[in-house]
């Protein structure tokens, strides 16, 4: 294209000189007269040697009779006679080829810096096709001022940037820089590689993202992609357009994992109402399980559902982090409760006596061990404890489902040194850490009849 224009100009020049004015055959004081080369002085921006009539700075007469000239030196040496030699690490490709005239008029121009095009942007677009179809353009691209980020000739920085990437973007995006400075957790690319996620010229996505989340995020976060796409139980929201950004903030956060808000707040954005898990299964509104409850399970109290749930996806029931049985009644096995033992000591159910490990003991007799560690009818964690929240201390259930009963009461009463349970499972029994209850004294109640009620 440029070559064609140059050829056209040369032909036009030759034609006009052939038609209009005869070439002088003697040396004259000035090349620019009313008859010759006057067009050079008619433009607003004139190259200094032209303006000063110092044509010999660039042109050397070779034959006065034929009015032919040669350059005093070939490009780029010709220009470097006056303009600084390029010495930086990165040089514009056009200059590497010695073609200053790819961008500049040598004599005069209608445009600043003797450019061939009205704006820097239009000039650059002659060779560099950037963001042509983009719907979201970066400000400098939109106003056609590439030189706000790039130098035209040479730079110490890759892509002829005016500054390093760690400085360039925040030079204008000052607020981002100020906010990031106060953040404990910062997304790694934010430090020096904004272009890792944003196209600096323009893109078809909001905020000029190179792609929309999660596709934008997955190339770096491959583990999350795998978890999201291959887990048996997948968190649908992650795969939705913009999914990652529904919980994470892209630049920086005061909390880990760049969370956009408190985890339970994020979860309850959707789980404040029933959610369909599969076409045949609806997850009830989670909020109903914790609303107005007196005692909250640690992770809930800490506002962190991710204490137990894998937020992107999991092979476990309900996207749990580790094993936990889906069924209410299940024989006890440590491996079934890896989730609980992810925070609570396994020793809790392994040791028959303790004076410190748990408060659920009668003297030093570990009642967790007693309830759980049995070959037959060993109780599971959820047989007594409510997972998310309860109105009873120690997250003890108000009731358990049993047979046709949906809610067989447990009747737990905590005391300063122990407690009392009177569930449907067994006769009322107390325990006391300081003055152990003597269980060898059998209550004179109809034990044999009630024994038939022990859940299996």
């Amino acid at each position, binding site marked *: 294209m440029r070559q064609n224009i140059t050829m056209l100009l040369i032909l036009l020049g030759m034609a006009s000189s052939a038609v209009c004015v005869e070439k002088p055959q003697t040396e004259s004081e000035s090349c620019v007269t009313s008859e010759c080369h006057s067009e050079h002085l008619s433009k607003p921006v004139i190259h200094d040697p032209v303006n000063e009539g110092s044509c010999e700075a660039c042109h050397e007469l070779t034959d006065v009779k034929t009015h032919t000239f040669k350059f005093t030196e070939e490009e780029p040496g010709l220009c470097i006679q006056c303009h600084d030699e390029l010495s930086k690490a990165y040089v514009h490709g056009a200059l590497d080829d010695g073609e200053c005239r790819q961008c500049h008029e040598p004599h005069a121009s209608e445009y*600043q810096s003797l450019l061939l095009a009205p704006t820097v942007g239009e000039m650059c677009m002659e060779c560099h096709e950037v963001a042509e179809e983009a719907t979201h353009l970066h400000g400098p691209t939109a106003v056609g001022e590439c030189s706000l980020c790039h130098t035209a000739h040479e730079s110490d920085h890759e892509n002829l940037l005016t500054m390093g990437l760690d400085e360039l973007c925040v030079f204008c995006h000052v607020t981002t820089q100020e906010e990031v400075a106060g953040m404990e957790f910062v997304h790694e690319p934010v430090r020096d590689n904004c272009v890792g996620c944003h196209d600096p010229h323009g893109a078809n996505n909001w905020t000029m993202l190179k792609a929309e989340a999660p596709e934008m995020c997955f190339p770096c976060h491959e583990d999350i992609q795998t978890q999201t796409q291959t887990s048996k139980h997948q968190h649908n929201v992650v795969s939705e357009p913009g999914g990652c950004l529904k919980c994470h903030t892209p630049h920086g956060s*005061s909390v880990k994992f760049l969370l956009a808000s408190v985890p339970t707040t994020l979860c309850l954005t959707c789980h404040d109402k029933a959610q369909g898990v599969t076409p045949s299964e609806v997850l009830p509104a989670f909020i109903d399980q914790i609303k107005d409850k007196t005692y909250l399970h640690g992770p809930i109290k800490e506002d962190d559902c991710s204490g137990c749930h894998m937020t992107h996806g999991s092979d476990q029931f309900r996207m749990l982090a580790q094993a936990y049985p889906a069924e209410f009644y299940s024989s006890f096995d440590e491996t079934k409760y890896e989730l609980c033992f992810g925070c609570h*000591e396994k020793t809790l159910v392994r040791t028959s006596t303790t004076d410190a490990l748990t408060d659920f003991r009668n003297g030093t007799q570990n009642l967790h061990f007693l309830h759980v560690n049995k070959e037959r009818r060993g109780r599971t964690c959820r047989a007594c404890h409510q997972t998310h929240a309860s109105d009873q201390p120690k997250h003890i259930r108000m009731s358990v489902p049993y047979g046709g009963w949906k809610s067989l009461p447990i009747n737990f009463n905590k005391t300063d040194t122990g407690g009392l349970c009177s569930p449907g499972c067994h006769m009322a029994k107390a325990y006391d850490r300081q003055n152990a209850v003597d269980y060898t004294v059998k209550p004179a109640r109809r034990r044999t009849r009630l024994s038939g009620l022990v859940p299996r």
Partner: protein
Amino acid sequence: METTRNSFVAMVIVLVMSTMTGGEETTSPRRIPEGALAPEFSAVDVTGQPYAYTRSSGKVLILAFLSSQQRHSQEAVESVYRALSSVPADRLTSCEVAFVLQDMDNTLMTSIQKEAPCAIHILGNDQYHIWGQFGIIATPTVLISDRQGKVLCVKPGLAYDEAPVIKSRLFQALELPYDISPDKASVVRTVTNSTISAKANRHLKMARLLMGKNRVGPAIEQAQMAYQLDPGSPEVAVALGDLLCLANRVDQAPVVIRLLSEVSVQTNRDKARINLALGWANREVGKLEEAEQCLQAGIQQDPTSPRLFFELGRVYQACNDSERAMKAYFRALQLVYPEG
């Protein structure tokens, strides 16, 4: 039939008992509450040396209960070290850092020792005595007490806000200034950069850069965008007025008067910028007296601005007062070329 009768009996018993045992809990919790005094304890550390914590030591206690069997123990160590690393080195000696391990796992111990930013103790606790003294329920649990032994923080289970809370409480315990108070440490703050002010500032920055490239038209457009976004910002109004004046946009002179007449700024330099633009605008609309007043006020506020003197010269010239105009132009030249 038998089952139904049994069920009925059980239900009656349960209902009776439930009326006997109902009521509000008034008992104390197992886990040591924040505000209580940390119990003094002793143990043997991993090197076999005896270790004892006493409140009279006057040291800040950071006690982390860990287990290699439990998730997140390693992350808890990182959170503790992250907080400790932000403490001035000379204050680290005021800290007593101990990790209570339920199992002496080599990998976890090596990791704790390798990354330690200060002196630490790894304590064994196979009988759960320290665990019991502090009423620990889950691991990891991180506890911080102040110099008097008052427990400031018990953070169990590695929640999302563990790092900021531990850091904030540690600074509180060490009586070091920290910009996030402990009660605010759990509040999630994010980089938003999407406020109106942030967007307006970006356009303003672009406007200035474009002016630097002599792209007056696009620069004014950017400043106008900034003004549309944030019309209440004095900075934006002054910058737009300044640009319109600099570009000599005669048709915009009434706009500049409207923009800047009510703007309030703090520095003399900004006040002078406003007076310069108002001086130019008033002259353009023919209000020469007001123009002179503005420019004279501007010169008082910034006597080093050649533009103010130049504009004043133009006002005097418009008033056909050549002598004063020449004086003002001359002063402007003196400021541009101080060497004479």
